[in-house]
């Protein structure tokens, strides 16, 4: 039996995901790539001209699948995104059209959780601030960093409220328990078989926590969910860590609270309008800022690539997707 030459399936990419620069070459034998960003044509015209029969598109956090774009893809059946988050996809439109979605599943959870913990410890123990202090040659003059109210805070016994107890939230909880933190959470629904305390609304969670770690998705309900009321409930010593999406927090309000000392500190990997970061934060010692790099490890990129290709290959051979996003 002679093997049939495989015709590579068409895969549309509107904007390259971060892993593309290292992994582009690996897509080629398997898929015929339609790279919209390389065309001189405006995207809608490109799609009308070239993407009429495209069945699958590779999306990412910065590559939105709006209803307008979807309208230009009459044959689309599958969106595979390299992100866990789906806020860049018009979900109702996909539901109406019966378009399947596959995301990054759980492969990113460990790296995201590691970064959340790293940011949290940094804020409490002033690691970035201490590193700045040493590098600016201040130590010989000032002798003791911790004098003058630069002492850090203990992690043990801290009540940590996790906002969104999905795969990432659970990994964060497991790690922080080893530091002696007391875990509670807010989620759409209480989870069975967990010893963590559940709060049905995020304000109550904040009122009973020393810190909030945001691990939930961004959608209409969670947009600006962390608002002035929640921050007030958290209190002046409270710390917020955000590894979800910038818009889960009312950023203007957060900046004001930090500048005015209404909350104790923040560790932020995501912002409302990346890569723009409010400049007022740059002068604060009690914030740690990272450029949305929670999944920027070779392992996560490699796992993401494997999962993307695995999902695409499953789709094109009529097998079940590896990490489908199911309607809940």
């Amino acid at each position: 039996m002679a093997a049939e030459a495989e015709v590579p399936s068409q895969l549309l990419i509107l904007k390259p995901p971060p892993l593309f620069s290292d992994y582009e070459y690996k897509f080629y034998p398997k898929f015929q790539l339609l790279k919209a960003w390389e065309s001189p044509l405006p995207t809608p015209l490109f799609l009308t001209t070239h993407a009429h029969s495209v069945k699958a598109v590779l999306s990412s956090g910065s590559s939105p699948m709006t209803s307008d774009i979807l309208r230009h893809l009459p044959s689309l059946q599958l969106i595979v995104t390299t992100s866990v988050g789906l806020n860049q996809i018009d979900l109702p439109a996909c539901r109406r059209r019966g378009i399947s979605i596959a995301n990054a599943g759980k492969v990113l959870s460990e790296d995201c959780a590691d970064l959340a913990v790293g940011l949290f410890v940094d804020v409490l123990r002033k690691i970035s601030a201490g590193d700045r202090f040493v590098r600016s040659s201040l130590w010989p003059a000032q002798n003791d960093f911790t004098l003058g109210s630069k002492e850090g805070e203990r992690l043990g016994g801290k009540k940590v409220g996790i906002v969104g107890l999905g795969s990432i939230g659970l990994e964060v909880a497991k790690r922080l328990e080893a530091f002696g933190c007391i875990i509670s959470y807010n989620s759409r629904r209480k989870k069975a078989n967990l010893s963590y305390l559940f709060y049905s609304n995020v304000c109550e969670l904040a009122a009973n926590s020393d810190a909030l770690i945001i691990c939930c998705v961004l959608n209409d309900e969670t947009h600006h969910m962390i608002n002035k009321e929640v921050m007030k409930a958290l209190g002046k010593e409270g710390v917020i860590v955000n590894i979800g999406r910038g818009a889960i927090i009312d950023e203007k309000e957060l900046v004001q609270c930090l500048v005015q000392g209404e909350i104790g500190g923040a560790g932020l990997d995501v912002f409302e309008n990346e890569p723009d970061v409010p400049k007022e934060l740059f002068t604060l010692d009690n914030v740690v800022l990272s450029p949305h790099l929670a999944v920027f490890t070779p392992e996560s990129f490699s796992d993401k690539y494997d999962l993307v290709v695995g999902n695409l290959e499953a789709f094109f051979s009529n097998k079940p997707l590896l990490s489908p996003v199911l309607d809940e």
Partner: protein
Amino acid sequence: MESIGVLLTCPMNTYLEQELDKRFKLFRFWDYPSSKDFFNEHSNSIRAVVGNTTIGADAEMIEALPKMEIVSSMSVGLDKIDLARCKEKKIRVTNTPDVLTEDVADLAIGLILATLRRICESDRYVRSGSWKAGDFKLTTKFTGKPVGIIGLGRIGLAVAKRAEAFDCPISYYSRAEKRGTNYKYYPSVVELASNCQILVVACALTPETRHIVNREVMDALGPKGVVINIGRGSHVDERELVSALVEGRLGGAGIDVFENEPHVPEELFALDNVVLLPHVGSGTWETRKAMADLVLGNLEAHFLNKPLLTPVV
């Protein structure tokens, strides 16, 4: 007790200083232009010395203060105290064990994450506006990486417990293998370094452990390896560390302690793969207060002829 002379060797904690001032006759060592000046004036007034890891009670001080009965150190480490001489002269010595164990272990993990995931460097990246020009680079994953611990005492065990929550396989070096753990034991530091990616220094500083992390160990750890020092600066051959990092023979380092604090080799300031902290292992207000209370409690116990709380000698 207000007439009892207590010497505080350096400014270490505002609360401690205030309480010592309230309860005893407090002398501040740094108020005097030189130690000789102080000893000439007050050598017979001092019955207790409160020291720390910066200035303890060395031979010169012990000999200069004939009425000294007790050294109460605001630290768990005793490397700045001439213990032999104290024993000889029947001077009591106390330290502050246990209260700082968790904080130091927390900081070790914080240093690992900051070093591997480049948190401080990426914070600089954002603050300088560089993010507008492009994404940051890939960083090193922590979960699941092999961690080697030098010294499996209280602090070493606390570090291990935390690293286990990140699914890290744990191995260690100690003077002798410890019963009651599942961690893999290596009989030499070089072997330990050859078999882990993150090497954490968590042992006491003694003449035997000076430069326990030397060139051979760093070469065994290799270009992807990371040294985390939460012990004492002298545990690591600092000169060798600098050249290993500069030459890329060692992947990175997270360092809270240095051989000659507060001086840090300036070559390290140019490196992005190191995190440098000003000896803040126990630097939380909760722990510093607990340490101060132990110091005060030990002093009071001594002068009231009660059993010392945390005696070493």
